[in-house]
């Protein structure tokens, strides 16, 4: 990777045109929309709202299905940066099939979505049990050659157990965190705003949760960690690096600072390093573990 900023799954990454635009905006790598075996329409609107300190969404994993997605992947001719295929499934077998397809489509790595908080029988529903995380990660690892990243949810009692399970299952990296389960009720009409009622909270409000999770995971596992959750500035990224992340993902940040947030954050990281006399990123990673 030329820089440590990665587009998080679910944002401007359902079609090749959008992905190309994000590449042109300076992202170091792309994670695709989470793709399943079958096409899924997602939930009716409202699916995404902005609250005081972040965004709340329950899109419902909309995606064209893995077979249709081959076209989007093939349209990304010579993407110049790694394209990481995100997939969701209900069991190890589905994850294997999806992983094999993504490998066939030339994905550089695979991200296992074991953490979406708002889709019945997927995501967090298979990703809150360390045994299941281990089973899914290890079976996918056996089936494909490209690196496998396991994306974890903060909506659990002990994220460290899950990270250890992913490491034991052979994951090449941990991605932490997915969104935080939350709800917004409209008090005028007395009902939840999102059609799915419950959604996942992202953006600035969840950064301290993400930083804590990355920090705890870094204390307990040896594989690299990709930090995600509420990063909108270079300084936010630095904080994640200090917690132990070797790269970071950006999602909601696009809303706050527009599509060129990738370039902006890279410039801010460089400036921060210059101001603080760091010449390589690797010297910052994990420094907060005192």
């Amino acid at each position, binding site marked *: 990777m030329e820089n440590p900023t990665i587009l998080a799954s*679910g*944002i*401007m*990454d*359902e*079609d090749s*045109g*959008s*992905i*190309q*635009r*994000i590449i*042109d905006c300076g992202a170091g790598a792309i994670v695709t*929309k989470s793709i399943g075996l079958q*096409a*899924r*329409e*997602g939930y*009716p*609107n*409202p*699916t*995404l*709202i*902005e*609250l*005081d300190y972040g*965004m709340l*969404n329950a*899109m419902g994993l*909309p*995606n*064209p*299905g893995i077979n*249709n997605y081959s076209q989007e992947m093939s349209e990304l001719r010579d993407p110049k940066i790694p394209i990481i295929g995100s997939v969701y499934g209900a069991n190890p077998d589905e994850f294997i099939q999806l992983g094999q397809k993504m490998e066939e489509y030339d994905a550089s790595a695979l991200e296992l979505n074991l953490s979406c908080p708002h889709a019945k029988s997927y995501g967090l529903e298979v990703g809150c049990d360390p045994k299941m995380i281990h089973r899914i990660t290890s079976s996918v690892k056996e089936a494909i050659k490209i690196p496998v990243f396991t994306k974890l949810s903060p909506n659990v009692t002990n994220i460290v157990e899950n990270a250890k399970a992913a490491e034991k299952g052979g994951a090449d990296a941990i991605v932490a965190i997915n969104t935080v389960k939350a709800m*917004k009720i*409209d008090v*005028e*009409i007395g*009902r939840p*705003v999102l*059609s799915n009622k419950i959604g996942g909270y992202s953006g600035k409000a969840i950064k301290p949760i993400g930083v804590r999770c990355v920090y705890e995971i870094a204390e307990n596992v040896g594989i690299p960690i990709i930090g995600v959750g509420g990063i909108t500035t270079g300084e936010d990224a630095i904080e994640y690096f200090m917690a132990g992340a070797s790269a970071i993902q950006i*999602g*909601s940040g*696009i*809303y706050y600072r527009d*599509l060129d947030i990738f370039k902006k954050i890279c410039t801010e990281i460089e400036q921060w390093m210059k101001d603080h006399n760091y010449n390589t990123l690797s010297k910052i990673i994990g420094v907060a573990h005192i």
Partner: protein
Amino acid sequence: MNIPRITKIIESKTEAENIKTVTFNYPQETIPGQFYMIWIPGVDEIPMSVSFIKGSRKGITFKKVGEATSALYNLKSDDRIGIRGPYGNGFNIKGKHILFVGGGTGIAMLAPAIEQAINYKIKLTAIIGVKNKKELFFEERLRKNGADVKVTTDDGSKGFKGFASDLAKKVLKEENIDAVLTCGPELMMKTLLDYCKDISFQASLERYIKCSIGICGQCCIGKGLRICMDGPVFDGKTLKNVEDFGIYRRDSAGRKVPF
């Protein structure tokens, strides 16, 4: 915060067969061509372009076509809906003689732009193209406000018999038009773009919109152009480079659907 605000419907008025205008109090300044997300609690939230602007009173005009529009159609004054926005860019109303072409319900969102052009004292011609006269609306409103209005119907039940684009071709030949602003079926708009070689062109596009604030990617066309943020109005130069314009749209799962 980008979240629906609950407001009461002031009036729900029938414009033509299965077509209604709903007005409400919504003070946010809105440019012709911008849209709101209209939340019908318990049903859906859908994008709707502004069709009526009078101070803090705004309105939307729509045809009953699906679950959400049917539910909205059945609401009465004092019923509550949620509104957020306005979103998108809106039209750039400039020219010496503008031709407006509204196909189907497209005239709904062009009407405020036409009225603004009248306020700017710009010469204009407005074509309203519908299948038959039962679907015709806003003809009287626009005439009353001083617009030169021409009507086309596919079946010849009123005005010029044929497509709006057919009449537009004729007008472009006969008049010294320097700008075309359009909204309607995408194939019609693509045909118009082909007619506008040296004429400034703006078209308002429609796609399935989910987040409405430019992050989910659902409404993207071409190289990641977001209908909800970069549009819904695009100029001719941009559209000439959008390979999906007039060819396909994407359904709510992101699958390509040909027009």
